[in-house]
């Protein structure tokens, strides 16, 4: 691992985004391999839960996602310390999350949302909390916070060789070289047909800006 390097993050260019939501689906697909999502989403039984959100206003369209803040405010408000910095990304430990929503409120980008938790394609039921449904008490489904993890688990699991990310990234890299050289790209970056998304690594971005500034002198 490179040391002392700020977190990378994914950002979109509104001038290229056409609002197609391919990124939302790609994000969902790679994060739900354990929920019956094979190479892509063909066998999905869970609802589509993205970790980035295409927004559309009168004047712009683009996906918004976590910036992996160096002083992450979401982590500061998490009462159970489920949010941590690991290997260049801010991640949420979904097993620890209690669904308190504090992080979603604290995030200045609106990059965190709460949805039901799933495992093995089934809603993940809680051991204790029950909810009344049609007069019967049933174990309530866990609801947890989701956000971009830069495909952290997937790219670090070594399980991507045959997966969609590697395939798409290879294609992407043969076309326009992406930031970060030969490293696997997050799924949203790889899949975007307009190349509107990119993984920005701070060191690369800064040195490029400095060079550009130098050229302007």
């Amino acid at each position, binding site marked *: 691992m490179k040391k002392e390097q700020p977190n990378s993050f994914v950002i979109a260019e509104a*001038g*290229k*985004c*056409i*609002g*197609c*939501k*391919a990124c*939302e*689906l*790609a994000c*969902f*697909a790679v994060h739900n391999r354990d929920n019956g999502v*094979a*190479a*892509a*989403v*063909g*066998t*999905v*039984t869970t*609802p*589509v839960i993205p970790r980035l959100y295409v927004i559309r*206003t*009168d*004047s*712009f*369209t683009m996906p918004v996602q976590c910036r992996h803040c160096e002083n992450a405010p979401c982590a500061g408000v998490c009462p159970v310390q489920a949010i941590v910095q690991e290997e260049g990304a801010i991640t949420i430990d979904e097993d620890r999350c209690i669904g308190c929503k504090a992080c979603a409120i604290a995030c200045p980008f609106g990059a965190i949302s709460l949805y039901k938790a799933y495992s093995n394609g089934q809603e993940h039921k809680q051991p204790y909390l029950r909810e009344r449904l049609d007069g019967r008490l049933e174990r309530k489904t866990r609801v947890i916070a989701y956000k971009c993890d830069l495909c952290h688990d997937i790219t670090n699991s070594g399980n991507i060789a*045959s997966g*969609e990310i590697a*395939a*798409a990234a290879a*294609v*992407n890299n*043969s*076309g326009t070289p992406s930031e970060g050289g030969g490293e696997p790209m997050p799924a949203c970056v790889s*899949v975007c*047909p*307009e*190349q*509107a998304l990119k993984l920005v690594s701070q060191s690369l971005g800064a040195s490029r800006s400095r060079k550009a500034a130098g050229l302007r002198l």
Partner: protein
Amino acid sequence: MTNKVLTICPYCGSGCHMNLLVEDGKVVGAEPADGRTNEGNLCLKGHYGWDFLNDPQILTARLRKPMIRKEGVLREVSWEEAIQFTAEKLTAIKEKYGPDAIMGTGSARGPGNEANYVMQKFMRAVIGTNNIDHCARVCHGPSVAGLTYSLGDGAMSNSIPEIEDTDLLFIFGYNAAVTHPIVARRIVKAKQKGATIIVSDPRKTELARIADTWLPLKGGTNMALVNAFGNVLIEEELYDKDYAANYVEGFAEYKESVRKYTPEYAESITGVKADDIRKVMRQYAKANKAMILYGMGVCQFAQAVDVVRGLASLALLTGNFGRPGVGIGPVRGQNNVQGSCDMGALPNVYPGYQSVTDPKIRKKFEKAWGVMLPDKIGYHLTEIPHLVLKEDKVKAYYIFGEDPVQSDPNAAEVRETLEKMEFVIVQDIFMNKTALHADVILPATSWGEHDGVYSSADRGFQRIRKAVDPPGDVKPDWQIISELATAMGYPMSYRNTEEIWDEMRALSPKFAGASYKKMEEQGGVQWPCPTEDHPGTPYLYEGNRFSTANGKGRLFACEWRAPLEQPDQEYPLTLSTVREVGHYSVRTMTGNCRALSQLSDEPGNIQISPGDASSLGIEDGQLVRIISRRGRIVARAQISDRVKTGATYMTYHFWIGACNELTGDALDPISKTPEYKYCAIRLERIPDQLRAEQKVRQQYESLRKQMHVGAGQA
């Protein structure tokens, strides 16, 4: 073990190359391949639009056995019985009423070119009529008619890859971001490379947002705007005088026709500022390479052919033909609508755009097919309701890979038409709304389950390949039609699609050199490709020789006509039908893909302006009732500040919020294309939202039951 099968995406005319990933005889994924148009990219439908093949039965179920209606109910039968029954019924109707009482369709979707060739041959040689048409009639029919008039060929003059290397893109009534994300990619790249982008559209589409100039014209005023463009080119002497003198005809009449359409006059009709009209035409004329791209916003009006010719005239006046990166591009919507036109699934032409009224050509086909052929142009698809309900002329309808109840205007009238017919055959992969009215259902193989050729929007023949075996007792379309022909006494015995393809190209000079082998070697072949040693043609009209009779381009302008149904007190809003990116056509395919269906599901949306929403007391996401003179439906309100006050938009994909229950059947007089982009409606707030939601759910459930969802066989 994962197998990769190289094929072409079945959604839209971009013609993207992709690999289907196959494990244990099932498709488990898709990945982009390096095709001429897509260069290793796919949109979300390409990536996630394949799992309808696994028959998840979300919206509707795959057809797995032939069915015949017995005592009012569709019952499964053997293929022998289905073919025999269909052949006897068609023969009886032909004998009783004559061949012109039978109408057939081509299919612009999965089946491919060979099946369309066989279908038009069946209608012409076996039934003995030119009554064959398909859904090009309800989309780019005006392009085929208009561009053939102006230039000689009714297709894109340019290629998709050229889009990014032009100096100016003029995009008219074309929402590429939604209909063709992979073409939109070229537009975005053109912008990055410094091209000027001009977008003419009533709505602020994604392309309007990134454009240098957006011309927000009022719906239904295209001709006035296009005439004003011509007026500026001539009045300001911006047109290419040498080009107009040498390669173009009709200048004097054209000049006279557009004289009245000053930018100020056009502003009073279109709402587009006179200064903007002048500005964009100065830019267009000045650009070294300028390209026009257009879509349904041009074609789906009762004045469509005129506007197509008008747009072609702008390119002719400025000399924007015969080079790479210029020209005019009607970007075809469905994956193989170019192909079904190429194959002659049209009432006036044989394969290769050869006229049925030309005796020499007819003789050629008579000799090849060994029968006498009819010399009269057949019926247009959109005239069928009138011909059945008012004139009682058509008795049988062979509907092949289309769903007119969902896709055609005025659905109630379409249902009435089908009910009145003596015999309706539906050949499809999924149960659909049209099949509810069928007397016979012939289940076919899907894309992914058969071989063939698709034509991309830019005239590119490309191979599709079989990846998996089909479920149930189904057959390839060309085989079903061949068996039917044989049962009717005209033996057809093709062994594979290549045999059909070779028969077709031997009869079609434009396609003669486009062999399977060449497609394999080059990845595809763009027509015209007249000989075996010809590589194909990326752009048309080299040397500024047009395909018209005298080789000249023909200018055209005429008076603007307002759309037929205008809003009034009872129906104060206008409705235009549009598309959304995650769904395709009548939605049988994407509605059966788990991810795509969840991204956007029933009952569909109606886009309205914030002003109209607040004056009606409607909130974003609420269910609303939408009523026209022809029907009423429920859909979800989607309040958008990109929509003008007084205008509304609905996508035609949804089955509960089916906008074609509302649309009108006014037709363009030449192409017979319906005015989908303009009719009058009223919106009503629904006070009891809870009950309305419940009713939508019930309606969806009962619809799915009708579509045989969950009826066993998973």
